[in-house]
Structure formats: structure tokens, C-alpha cells
């Protein structure tokens, strides 16, 4: 258990949440193969990692297979409440639940909140031409001034008019293509595909 804990601490500190998910999944399968389970701290980190990587489906399934006793653990019950709020798209309630709980591990909850705020701001800047500042502040779980500052820091603000923030029109990013492992934005990849199609049709 101590090996996995050290590895998880390292990845959590580095913000490598994808690695945290992978390591937790592998560890859980191996311990279950031997008929055992992880402890409460392990499952708390595991759940939080799923939420930070926005994998709500697997977070729900993880909660369903939690060993007896761990689901009612202090931090886990708060994490589950937060998961339900995210699942039902109730973001103001999510931030309230995170802020209200006294966390045993004080580092992971801020990471989750920031990840959700970043995703929410990206979604709103993509989905809205204009939105009320107070609505944006409510879903980010911050004050209206803080919401404006965050949006300006992301360079998505076109203008602020009264109580409304206007976002810049989002452009679809040009997809980079890969030819033999080298990322390229030229037409080489398209040419390669066309050659394959022509050879196939000739055959």
C-alpha cells in the first residue's frame, strides 16, 4: 500500500491526474484479484481523480463498487455529494458542498474546484455570446469581480456591458495531422490517405 501511496502523492503534487486514474485502476484490480481492497484515502483520491478528469460515468461506477464502510467515510460522502451535483449540473450547489466540508486532506478539494471552474469557463465561453455576470459567478462559485477577472485572464472577453459579459466568438481549432509520427499541418496526411484509397480502388 505504501508504494502506491507514494506514487499517488507524487502524481497528485505534479497535477498528473490522468496518471493518478491509471495507477488507481491498476492497483484496485490487482488488490481485488487477491481478494482485498484499498483504504479510504486511496478511494478518496481515486474518486477525486475521476472528477478532475471529468469522467463522471466511471466515478458513479466506482462509488457503486466501494467496499462496505468506505462510502460513509467523511471525505467520501462529501465527494459523492459533489459528484451528484456535477451529474445534475448543479454547479452552485457543487461549490457550496466543496467549501462547506472540513477535508481531512486539504489539498485535493481545491484542485477539483479549480478543474471544474476551468471546464465551466471554457464551456460558457464557447456556448454563450453573452451571459449575466452573476450567473457566471454562481456557476464558478466565486464573486462577480472574480468571475470577470478569470474570464479576462482566459482572454475570452469581448466586452462587458452593464450586468452582461460578452464572449469572443470561438473559432474551431484547426486539427493538426500526423504523418509518420511527425505532427504536420500540411496536406501530406491527406495525400497519403488519397494514395491508399486510389491503390485500393485500382486493386
Amino acid at each position, binding site marked *: 500500500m505504501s508504494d502506491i501511496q507514494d506514487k499517488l502523492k507524487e502524481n497528485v503534487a505534479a497535477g498528473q491526474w490522468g496518471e493518478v486514474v491509471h495507477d488507481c*485502476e491498476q492497483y484496485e*484490480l*490487482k488488490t*481485488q*484479484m487477491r*481478494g482485498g481492497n484499498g483504504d479510504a484515502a486511496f478511494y478518496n483520491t481515486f474518486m477525486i481523480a475521476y472528477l478532475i478528469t471529468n469522467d463522471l*460515468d*466511471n466515478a458513479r*461506477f*466506482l462509488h*457503486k*463498487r466501494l467496499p462496505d464502510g468506505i462510502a460513509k467515510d467523511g471525505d467520501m460522502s462529501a465527494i459523492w455529494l459533489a459528484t451528484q451535483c456535477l451529474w445534475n*449540473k448543479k454547479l452552485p450547489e457543487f461549490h457550496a458542498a466543496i467549501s462547506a466540508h472540513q477535508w481531512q486532506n486539504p489539498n485535493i478539494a481545491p484542485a477539483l474546484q479549480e478543474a471544474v471552474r476551468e471546464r465551466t469557463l471554457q*464551456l460558457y465561453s*464557447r*456556448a*454563450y*455570446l*453573452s*451571459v*449575466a455576470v452573476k*450567473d457566471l459567478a454562481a456557476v464558478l462559485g466565486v464573486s462577480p469581480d472574480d468571475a470577470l477577472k478569470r474570464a479576462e485572464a482566459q482572454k475570452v472577453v469581448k466586452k462587458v*456591458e452593464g450586468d*452582461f459579459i460578452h464572449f469572443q*466568438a470561438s473559432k*474551431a481549432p*484547426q*486539427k493538426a495531422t500526423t504523418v509518420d509520427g511527425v505532427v504536420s499541418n500540411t496536406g501530406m496526411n491527406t495525400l497519403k*490517405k488519397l494514395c*491508399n*484509397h486510389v491503390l*485500393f480502388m485500382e486493386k
Partner: protein
Amino acid sequence: MDGIINEIISKNKKGDLESLKNYLEKNQSSLKNNVGHISNAITALEPREHSMGICYLLYTKAVHQPDQSFVSNVELFFDSYNASQIRDRCADKFATIVHKYTEMLRNVKQPARGIVRLQKIINTFCERSSELSPVHPDFVLLCLLSKNYKVATVALERTIYDIDPKKLGVTPKDFMMYYYYGAMIWIGLKDWDRAYNFLVTCITIPCTALSAIVVEAYKKFVIVSLITQGKLDGPPKQSSNFLQRNIKKFCNEYIEFANAFKAKDQQKMTQILQQHKDTFESDKNTGIINQASKKFIHQAVQRLTSTYLTLSLSDIATNVGLTNAKEAEEILLLMIEEGDLNATINQKDGMVSFIDGTQTSVMDVIEEEMDNARHIVQQLEKMDDDIQVSRDYVHKQLLRDPSTREEIEEGRGFKGKGGKMLSRAAELFQ
């Protein structure tokens, strides 16, 4: 029992596995009479070296006395068995062991215990990732029971082309269960396209009678069709005539719901849900039907994009049958987040602007589909080549040709050019 063990050890030493197989087949009744001693007998054998022998012993135990030690015996065997001894010789018995192991884990409520082992067996028992084995459905079942849906996707994402009952012991039931359980995994992960493909594969198995698996799969197929395509066109064209004529009487409630969905009659859908609530609950399809009801709203919004470039939130709410503009805004935001809709919301004016999909994204989809089609055609060509050189096909073709059939039937040699070659071919394939 000692005699059997000694025979296993000596024949393995000589490398005479065919002879060992014949011996074990003939002595199955003796094994049955000594089933209580099998756990002790196995300790005298090496799993890696005596895999076929242990397979027969564990098979006997699985059929006649699967006691508490069976699971640990099987796990020790699985951890270091030699798949080459099992394939083509006793694959059906190996399948029985795997099925019994899965059943026992299920009974003691420890399904997660077998996931890593069965995953490893799929990789070692199958020589190619495109092969279907009897281990596949049990692996997916354990993932379902233990709520480890993500682990199952590693196997489910492989495309299955090769199904060889003699080599790997796979049966039609294994085929149907794999695709049915696989569809349930994809439904849980909300990958509706893959769930649809898996359900189609399950229900289009050739049949002259309806199995319970196909009936349950068809019920889910009806609902998933509504989610992916907005309608149900009936059973797939490639399904058997028997299914096409008889399936409806087993899932009337689902067909009714699908008809109301297709007619865009939300009130009728709600009425049917209430009326047949018990049926849907007992079939454990309530969750997926609720998903279909949500998708009904999303599809109604998507239909608006073909008529309007901009529309107010309140008009969207009225057209789609929602309570108010706020609810419409929430649904639009959800659809934009999930990638089901390209639109922007102007909250200040209460207006929504619908945007066409970019040309780049459409071209990417077309190219990906063309690549998939090319890959599948290459696989089909390879399968066609394999069939053309197979023993049964060549013999059948020789018999079909009137000029060669007579000679084969009368046992005379062929005449004329190439006659000697054909004569030799006929001898080989008789």
C-alpha cells in the same frame, strides 16, 4: 488416480499429446469416480507442463464436484497454463472450467477477483486479437457484475473476425452472450453507437428459434435505435426470417413506445411508460428508457436547426414542449457540452443562433469511415481466400462440376489435361 497421473506425466514427457487426449477421453468415468481426489492429484502436476491433463481433471471437478477448493485450483492453473496444449484438443473442456469458475465467483459475490485472470487468459488463449473465445463473455460478465465497466472496453474495442469452435471451443451461446453483455457495457458508458452495433450483431445470429438472449437483446435494441437514429425501422434486414416474423409478440410494450417516439407524441410516450412501468422495471430497462426520453427532447431541438438559423429561448421551449426559457437554456447548454449541438446563446437578448458543422469535421468523419471500410474489405478478402483453399469447399466444388463429379463418385481417374492433378486433389479431399 495414480495411474492416470503417471500416464499424464509419461505421455507429456514423450510429447505424445494426441495419445494422452485419447487416453483421458476413454477414462472419463474413472476420473468421475475419483473426483474427490482430484485436488490432491493436481499438486503432483506442473500447470505449464501438464496443462492438458490438469484441464481434464478440473473439467471433471467442474462438472461433478465444484467445491470450495475448485476456485483456488483453477486460479493456480490459470496463472501458468500452456495454451498451446489446450487449443484444438480440449478447448471445450477449458470453456466449461472457465464458465464454472465465473459462476462460482458470482455465487460468492466476488466477481472482481476473476477480472485480471480472465483478461490475461483472453490474451494467451487467443492467438490473434480478432478471435472470439469462450472466455470473452465471462470476462465481460465479471466486469458488469463488479461495476468495472472501463476494464471491459479493452476487450470490447477489438474487432472480432475469427470464430473457430474447434480450436477455441466457442459456442453460439458464447457469441450471443459476449455481444449482449458488451452492449450493456457500452450502454452503461453511454457509447450508443457501439451499443447499437453490438446489439445488431447479437440479434442477427442465424436461428430457427428465438433464444431468451436474443429477445432481451432486441428489447434493448429497440430503445438504443431510438437514441441513435430517432426511430425504429424494425429488425435489421440481415436478421433471420424467424426473428423478423416472431419477435414482436415478445416485446409489444417496447414497440408501442417506439411508435409513440417516432410519431413525436410525448404525451403518448409518458402514458406508455406509466402503463408498462412494471414490465420495464422487471426487464431492468427503466434507466435506458429514461435516457431515450431525454434524447427525444434533444432530437426535437436538433430538428429545429434544419429550419431556423436563430430562435428565441422561449420559442424553443414552446416548440419542444419544455416548461420555460430557463429549462430550454439548460438543455441547450447540456447539448453543446456533449457535442450534440452547434449553437451559441445570447442570454441578454434571449436568442439562440444555430451554427452549421464545420467542413473539416465532416471530412474527418468521411475519411475515417472510408479507412474502416477499406480495412473491412481487406479482412473479407482474406477470409474469402481462406475459404477457397479449405478442404470442404474444394471437395464441394469438385463434386459440383459434372465433368469431375462422375469420376469422383465412380472412383475412376480423371481424363484429359490436368486430370492427374484433379485426381490427386480429389484423393486428398476424400
